[in-house]
């Protein structure tokens, strides 16, 4: 059968396409953090395969609908194992591509730290505590605590240690590609490095009761000198108050 001979070619073509898409470097316009670059680049890589595939499937449905509408010569269904094998192999190839590229990104996400401006060996530690219905950020090295405002230095490795005092919350900063649940009695971690100064929104992404949608915080990313300045200033105002929180 002439058509069947084309099938290995289809498999080969799909294989070549997914390998190309898997390795081709993609530009990272306007991405603000190392984790955002990783996550959104992967998302676009998948889109490069998914969008043509979706269009192909929808196109095939539409084409079949129009072409074979009121077709006076319907052909009986035959067994066509070669076709079935072909599209199974094609789907497996595509999913292998999805799995492998996700695996690589996941590895990078937990290992890679990105450029650290100050060459310090330790990341900036931030303890994030969610509770109904606000966020508390503690900088244990600096003995500083803030509420609903998170200030971070740009181009430094940030290590979030996340927990909750009551129900489950979730730290979600979409513009920086940060998401990690906050469980009571447990500490979860997330590492990133913000490459661009700016103001970002932190949402709570796990339903936590009536105030869930108001549990927002502001993330302000500033240059390291400005960050130090902010810390000093904050320490002064905090020590002025007698009820200053003990950060450790």
């Amino acid at each position, binding site marked *: 059968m002439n058509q069947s001979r084309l099938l290995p070619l289809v498999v080969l073509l799909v294989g070549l396409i997914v390998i190309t898409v898997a390795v081709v470097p993609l530009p990272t316009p306007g991405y603000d953090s190392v984790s955002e670059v990783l*996550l959104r680049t992967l998302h676009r890589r998948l889109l490069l395969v998914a969008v043509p*595939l*979706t269009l192909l499937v929808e196109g095939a449905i539409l084409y079949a609908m129009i072409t074979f509408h009121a077709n*006076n010569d319907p052909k009986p269904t035959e067994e066509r194992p070669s076709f079935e094998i072909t*599209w199974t192999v094609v789907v497996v190839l595509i999913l292998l591509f*999805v799995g492998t590229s996700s*695996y690589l990104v996941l590895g990078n996400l937990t290992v890679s730290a990105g450029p650290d401006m100050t060459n310090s060996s330790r990341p900036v530690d931030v303890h994030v505590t969610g509770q109904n219905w606000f966020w508390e950020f503690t900088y244990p090295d600096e003995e500083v605590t803030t509420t609903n405002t998170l200030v971070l230095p740009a181009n430094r490795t940030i290590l979030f240690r996340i927990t909750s005092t009551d129900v*489950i919350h979730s730290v979600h900063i979409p513009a920086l590609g940060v998401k990690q649940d906050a469980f009571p009695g447990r500490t979860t971690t997330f590492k990133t490095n913000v490459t661009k100064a700016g103001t970002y929104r932190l949402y709570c992404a796990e339903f936590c009761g009536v105030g869930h949608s108001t549990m927002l915080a502001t993330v302000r990313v500033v240059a390291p000198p400005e960050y130090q300045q902010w810390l000093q200033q904050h320490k002064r105002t905090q020590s002025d108050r007698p009820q200053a929180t003990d950060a450790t």
Partner: protein
Amino acid sequence: MVLVVGIAAGTAWLLRSIGRSPSPWTDGGTVTVSDEVGLPGVVDLLEWVLTIDHRRIGILYLIFGTFTGLWGATDAMMIRTELLNPEAVVWTSGTYNALFTTHGLTMLLLFVTPVFTGIGNYFIPIMLGADDMAFPRLNAIGFWLLPPALVLVRAGLITEVIGRLFLALDLDLGFLFAIQPPELGWTLYPPLSVVSTNPETDILLVGLHLSGIATTIAAINFITTIILERSDSVSWADIDIFSWGMLTMSGIILFAFPLLGSAFVMLLLDRNFGTTFFAVKSGGPLLWQHLFWFFGHPEVYIIVLPGLTLVSLILPKFAAREVFGFRSMVYTTLAIGVLSFGVWAHHMFTTGIDPRLRMSFMVVSLAIAVPSSIKMFNWIATLWNGRIRFAAPMLFCIGGISTFAVGGITGVFLASIPVDLLVHDTWYVVGHFHFIIMGLIVFAMFAGSYYWYPILTRKMYDRRLALVHLVLTFAGVWIAFFTMLIVGYLGLPRRYATYPAEFTLLQQIATGGAYLLGLGVLIWLWNMVQSYRMGPRIENADVWDLKDIGQFTREWQWFETQLEREDE
């Protein structure tokens, strides 16, 4: 309040108009023969309540499912209305939170499964040549457990209505108002669900447990019927694809629902008797997530497999050829049933569980896309070289598979752990699963409702209204749920009663799409009721010209003998 009055007035009008004799103008003058359908008497009603006939129980299931579906759809319309505005101005945040909780629970547990159980109850014994379901009395019990389950699950609203009625009689029954609709999300995650002081939370858990028992009873009945009650002429190879779907669904139910029931009991004990299954210092909130999703993901396939196989059953009838790759259709159905138990932790990628564990769940979640895609290609191959007829059941099947493509592909995105980190718990997820639930499952139900309408009612539906319904529903799905994908990718979390103002326009577009869906459902309901009352009577059992293409299957043959018997 306005809503309650509106519903009451509407019901009163409907009851009155059913009693009235039909007027000839509503059907556009195309009808020649029509007979009157009056209100049933007390004896008739009693017959329905006490029936153990599989067809009557099937119809009871369908009526129940339609009712719960409409109720869940009302929740959805209220959710979308609230979201027209970035602030909580239409309803309070609390009401909004209760709405998405009850919407999810009603639709997943009390709407989809009862509807497919109803279709299966009516048609599977006929299609397999069985006299009835294997356990007719159990069948009736299984159904009659559902209405009390519904009352318990939706008690918060029901008690409020009763309380208000008594308030009008100067009787203040305060305890009725203490029972509030639950504000937990359908996933009922502790500690939130444990610390909730609302007594309805306990009533809800009992109701859900009851519905689980009802579902399990029905599943046992289907398994026994399909395996043992077939007539001698129906061998394993002759079982139709929809029965295979129901068999697999029932198998999954048998393993998933008892576990859910145990988890509910554990939660009830934690709430009321001081046990510590899900306490922070004991099993921990994560234990609930493991138990819940070990049920919860198979549940997704419990509701989708009947839909997928119903499409596989109806599609070839209007393409004038047999379904392509029948055997692979069966094997993929069984494969999905098995794999569905190995993907649950993909709902927990952001909880901080071991990356190696996450990786294995990602692999299985990707693998389960293989059988689903094979089905998709088989459907397209069925259409290819066929003779496609644009009847309402066919158009709903084609529309369903085209939206299912998007639902499936976004599912692969969500299976990828890094992409899931980006969009987990955002509107993206909501858009994704509605593309499948509304886009495929409900489309398949609509297809089935039109395809078998002649058998169920002896009447024909209004074809023009069916087309309007199709267009509204198809456009509604794309507008509402594609917009949700965008909103979610932009980062807005789900379950947000209020939201930042920059999302207003997109949310309003999604609401517009949802309103189209709602309008479509109303037109469908009108078509079903009015056509039953005064649609043209079916005289020839071969409504879809299935004899010409050799697909005049068993249920239609049965229908033909029924018609002949009536003529005598």
